[in-house]
């Protein structure tokens, strides 16, 4: 069966997703940001490792062909489709302090379910449901966002990057625990708290064949997939 869910702006979500599922995420409006962590569902010590992913791919952005890797060398999720071309692995997650600094006070007492949530707390809540906590918050990726670095290393956030309907499809390469926080990018300019829904849908898909685009994107991707396949000998 297929499953879909609309994740409201500020919302959080986690789910165990078996391997070989297509996880599609779609921006319900311009300026979406989906802060994301991945864990091996069978062993959460085996988790997304942004540095290992970036250095294996020689990239500081994420797009089609890229394979998100764990610190144990496993291909976790492959980006099989991407209409946007750049997703951010550098900027990290919002915290209560950042949200207050950029978007002002916004408590539950004042705003009820429209209160201004942040990725750090959202992650803590979702992780706690799986027996995990602060020690498990490692570097995350931000789907739909773009941050560039110039020659001197200065970071720049591109607020107009994500268009309405921007869509990414990931293929789970192992059984995953996926954690999403649909909260603003931490470098989003100050002003009104952006509240862009993200549509999630999950369906079965084929395993990566030998001629798969992601497997062959770089030799590193193929080796990470081989290591993932060893988990299912």
């Amino acid at each position, binding site marked *: 069966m297929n499953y879909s869910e609309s994740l409201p702006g500020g919302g959080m979500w986690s789910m165990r997703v078996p391997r070989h599922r297509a996880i599609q995420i779609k921006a319900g409006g311009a300026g979406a940001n989906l802060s994301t962590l991945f864990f091996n569902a069978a062993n959460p*010590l085996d988790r997304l*490792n*942004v*540095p*290992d992913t*970036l*250095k*294996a*791919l*020689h*990239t*500081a*952005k994420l797009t089609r062909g890229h394979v998100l*890797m764990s*610190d*144990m*060398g*496993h291909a976790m999720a492959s980006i099989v489709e991407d209409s946007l071309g*750049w997703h951010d692995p*550098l*900027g*990290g*997650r919002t*915290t209560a*302090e950042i949200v207050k600094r950029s978007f002002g006070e916004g408590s539950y007492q004042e705003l009820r379910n429209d209160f201004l949530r942040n990725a750090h707390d959202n992650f803590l809540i979702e992780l706690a449901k799986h027996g995990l*906590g*602060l*020690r*498990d*918050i*490692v*570097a*995350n990726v931000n789907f739909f966002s773009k941050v*560039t*670095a*110039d*020659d*001197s*290393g*200065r*970071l720049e956030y591109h607020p107009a990057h994500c268009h309405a309907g921007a869509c990414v499809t990931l293929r789970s390469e192992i059984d995953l625990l996926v954690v999403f926080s649909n909260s603003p990018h*931490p*470098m989003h300019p100050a002003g009104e708290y952006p509240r862009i829904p993200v549509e999630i849908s999950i369906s079965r898909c084929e395993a990566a064949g030998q001629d798969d685009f992601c497997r062959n994107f770089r030799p*590193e991707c193929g*080796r*990470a997939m*081989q*290591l993932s396949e060893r988990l299912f000998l």
Partner: protein
Amino acid sequence: MSTLNYVESPLSEADAAFSQIIPAGDGWIHKIAAGETLRITDLEGNQAADTFFFDATDLEERYDAQVTIREQGGIYLTTGTALLSNRGNTMLTITADTCGRHDTLGGACAAESNMVRYALRKRFMHNCRDSFLLQMVLSGLPLTKRDLAHNINFFMNVPVTADGGLMFADGVSEAGKYVEMIAERDVHCLISNCPQLNNPCNAYNPTPIRVSIWEARP
């Protein structure tokens, strides 16, 4: 390439309260008390010092690369950089740096990442994460792999291009270059003096580094 930020320290090695050579490929963990200054010296040049910090009073609080680079608005570390924790607190501040640029993105080498990056048969080469894990266990502190996140690579040069490429460039470090930082709270400093032989991060020749500590200045 931008100008590097070169700042010398007024401290003299002769006045250091602690000094130790970490041979190529070895690990080290040591408590740095609030107010103490830690200097890491690249003794022979082009050596990567993989470094991580834990808050000594609450080990769950640790160096956070994404928080650090975002809050300073740049990916390289140098004099003036506040090394921030996963709770957004300043753990240490870099006070002197004669290298001028240090990497925040490359993380540590590991048996598994060597398999992915180079060849599956590279599994059995010595690597930074093995040194980290061994030091964490030997320290007697309740630290496990779960506590290990994305570290700093002092003296390593990993530029990002405008179109989002990541390069492993020749080192900007030379023999005798150092980086110095003052602890703003009690921390445990974990170092792996990188044994990587598969890429130029150590110029294919891992060499020793020195760690020196000065007492808090009144």
